[in-house]
């Protein structure tokens, strides 16, 4: 390192930056989180892209340094001599302590800003009570007074999901919405108010999605799915009116195999 010339240093810097740009351009353009589905997803995708660039930079610096060192300082066959007795370099060590600290502090502050952003309450909210049970979902709409095994929501309205589980821990996730939260048994019981069981998300693209259970909940975990339908306010109102005609007892509250049993078979044949 001590005999590194300015030209070598510039070449290595250029190599690291070039590698960073290459990785960043490819990876930022890939749609990692799948299609868009919620207002909350946009700042998360931006955050991901910023982190991809920073990560590409760190990865490239380490790789370029390592490959250069191996190429430049590889022992010639038969060379049994020792390397230079360099024990360290205080200035360099301070640099590679301080710069990563600044990067992670930036990452922390930026994450906190995004977190506050995606958890902000909107003025128009609709409450849905989500109840999970091995291996099925149930959605109650206290404002509309209806219940369903499918999650129907009007597009562009912020959902205020109140989560509860009846047996074990489950987790609510619609991949396209990028929001996830565990459903914890006991959140409706005395003492359960310590559990943070309200999560907000604003679906903003109409379409059909899946509610996925992401916390291991038993043998039916993989098939614990429910349909999630994002539709216009008009369609939603019509659905809610329809749903109100179904007697309460007919809403399933969990069945062997779960609501999602066989769900993949359908997909394969589609």
């Amino acid at each position, binding site marked *: 390192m001590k005999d590194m010339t300015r030209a070598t240093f510039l070449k290595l810097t250029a190599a690291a930056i070039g590698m960073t740009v290459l990785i960043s351009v490819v990876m930022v353009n890939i749609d990692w989180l799948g299609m868009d589905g919620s207002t909350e997803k946009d700042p*998360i995708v931006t955050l991901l892209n910023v982190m991809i660039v920073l990560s590409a930079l760190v990865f490239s610096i380490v*790789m370029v340094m390592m490959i250069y060192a191996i190429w430049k300082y590889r022992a010639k066959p038969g060379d049994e001599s*020792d390397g230079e007795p360099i024990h360290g370099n205080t200035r360099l060590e301070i640099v590679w302590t301080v710069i990563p600290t600044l990067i*992670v502090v930036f990452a*922390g502050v930026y994450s906190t800003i995004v977190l506050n952003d995606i958890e902000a309450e909107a003025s128009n909210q609709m409450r849905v009570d989500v109840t999970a049970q091995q291996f099925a979902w149930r959605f109650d709409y206290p404002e509309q007074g209806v219940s369903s095994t499918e999650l129907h929501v009007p597009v562009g309205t912020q959902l205020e999901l109140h989560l509860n589980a009846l047996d074990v821990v489950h987790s609510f996730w619609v991949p396209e919405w990028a929001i996830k939260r565990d459903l914890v048994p006991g959140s409706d019981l005395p003492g359960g108010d310590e559990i943070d069981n309200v999560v907000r998300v604003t679906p903003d693209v109409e379409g059909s999605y899946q509610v996925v259970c992401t916390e291991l909940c038993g043998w039916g975990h993989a098939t614990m799915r429910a349909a999630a339908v994002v539709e216009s306010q008009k369609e939603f109102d019509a659905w809610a009116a329809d749903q109100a005609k179904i007697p309460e007892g007919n809403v399933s509250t969990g069945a062997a195999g779960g609501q999602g049993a066989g769900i993949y078979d359908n997909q394969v044949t589609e």
Partner: protein
Amino acid sequence: MVAALKAPGQPRALLGMLVGIGFGFGLVVALRAIRGLEIFQTEQTGYPHVIVPGITGPIGYLIGIGCFDYWFRWAAGAPTVPEDHSDHGADGWRDYLRFNTDHKVIGIQYVCTTFIFFFIGGALAMGIRAELAQPGTQVVDPGLFNGLFSTHAAIMIFLFIVPIFAGIANYVLPLMIGAPDMAFPRLNALSFWMLPMGGILFLASFLAPGGAFDAGWTGYAPLSTGAPLGQSFFNLGVQFAGASSVATALNFLVTIVTMRAPGMSFWRMPLLVWANLSTSLLVVGATPFIAGAQFMVLLDRALGTNFFQAAAGGDVISYQHIFWFYSHPAVYIMMLPGFGIVSEVISTHARKTIFGYRLMALALLGIVVLAFAVWAHHMFVSGMFAWLRVPMMITTLLIAVPTGIKIFSWLGTLFDGRIHLDNTGMLFALGFICSFILGGISGVMTAMIPLDIHISDTYFIVAHIHFVLFGGSVFTIFCGLYHWFPKMTGRMYDERLGRIHFWGTLIGTWGTFVPMHWIGMEGMPRRVADYAAQFGDWNLVISIFAFILGAVQLVFLYNMVTSWRWGPRAPANPWGAKSIEWLVSSPPPRFNFPSVPRVVGGPYEFGVPGARHAIFEHEEEAGALAEPVPERATTPA
């Protein structure tokens, strides 16, 4: 026959186990009969007539093999011989199957035992990948699938990665600090023999009604508290593996603090010793928490306590807090010893002193301190109180700083060195840096709450943890085994097979675990026996690479076994390393050193004219200090 059953050894151990099982079983039956209860309580979580023998059986085995003979004699006031070395050292393979107090024997016992479990855990992983190669259910049903990944993780963590580092350090650490043995050799032997007890309990769960434990290695309550009998085997197995781990860590701490050779100040300790000092601090502080968590689950299951029963006022989320208070530091327990190994190997094969030695040691201690303040980053979506998330995110992100210091210092060590790539250990060290940096980067991403909300409990997490534990820990384990194989066995391994193993492992690791990041972000949850068809292609690719990764480990096995038996004899110091273990023969003499070594300098003084790390008394007397200064290259490359 009678003599064999009276002397400590495997026959008496098996008898002890049978007696222990019989005693436990009889106790339960008798007590339940006296109380007028149903004798065999076989409700899903009950089975006291299985759980109690599950505790007394292993204890009977440990008594039988002789772990407590000396202490029993001492406690009973019978004559004991403090300098009795009849349990020390090995003359043949049979001596590896008995209670042995020699740290070198125990080190090899650890490495061989843990590798048996590595191959069992690996076979379970192959089963997982076979099922996941295609969407749908082909190989195993969902219940057995849950059992496969739960036992895979439990075995790899508790029976392979954590203990094999204890095994490697058991062998080399006393040699490195110039000690004749560990501080408490009998406790050391007990620690080892507790380990297979945990492993056998884990595997025995496959025989339990309801199948192997299937609530994941995390065993979240209340899924675990209501699970079939197999879960109790997990609760018990963790106790034995955990007790083994804690006792070894105490042993390392006392050994490192009190038994260093004259002249070995803290700042002259090799970084492997620093790494094991740090790891032991973590183990002693954190491991009791998982023992406690699993006991609480066992009590909820067997005695009807309500630690985690929400309906009875229990707190479901508190399980996760207690569990992760161990299980996050556990990641560093599984990584810091590897950092130590990589430091030794890179310095040796770059023929270069460690760059920034003191900051390297301080970075280890920094990780120890931070490791206790990050556990809740596993719980960002768990529904725990929201205010804890941001502080835990900040501490987690800060761990990247000491970790980065280590990576940059290894690179600094490579610069201006004479890098020898013709060594498998060195290849694994460099491959470790490439792989681990990716695990570190994905770790920073998972630490960031908004990203973690999306990727937690997806295949992204599976990818991250395998890049840390396979690309990280397992690479350093191979690195260390290749490095010290000549010292441990007195034989050289086959470098050509080693290179095949390295490249196969590197390609297999990246091919298996890189695509998992993608499918995780796109929406594939973890721990599922079946998945949506859109992920089918990538899962097939992952499975193919996983099978390559599995198959290439057989090359390693073949290399180790045949080289141990037929490999060329190893000289004392085949790599030209500086630390003390290379100053004695391969393998070292029974009591390690012909005379007490005296440490006179740092452990990595490559290229410093006339520098020595340690000298022996008998050398000093013979005037060996007057040896000529080793020649070194005069012109920098």
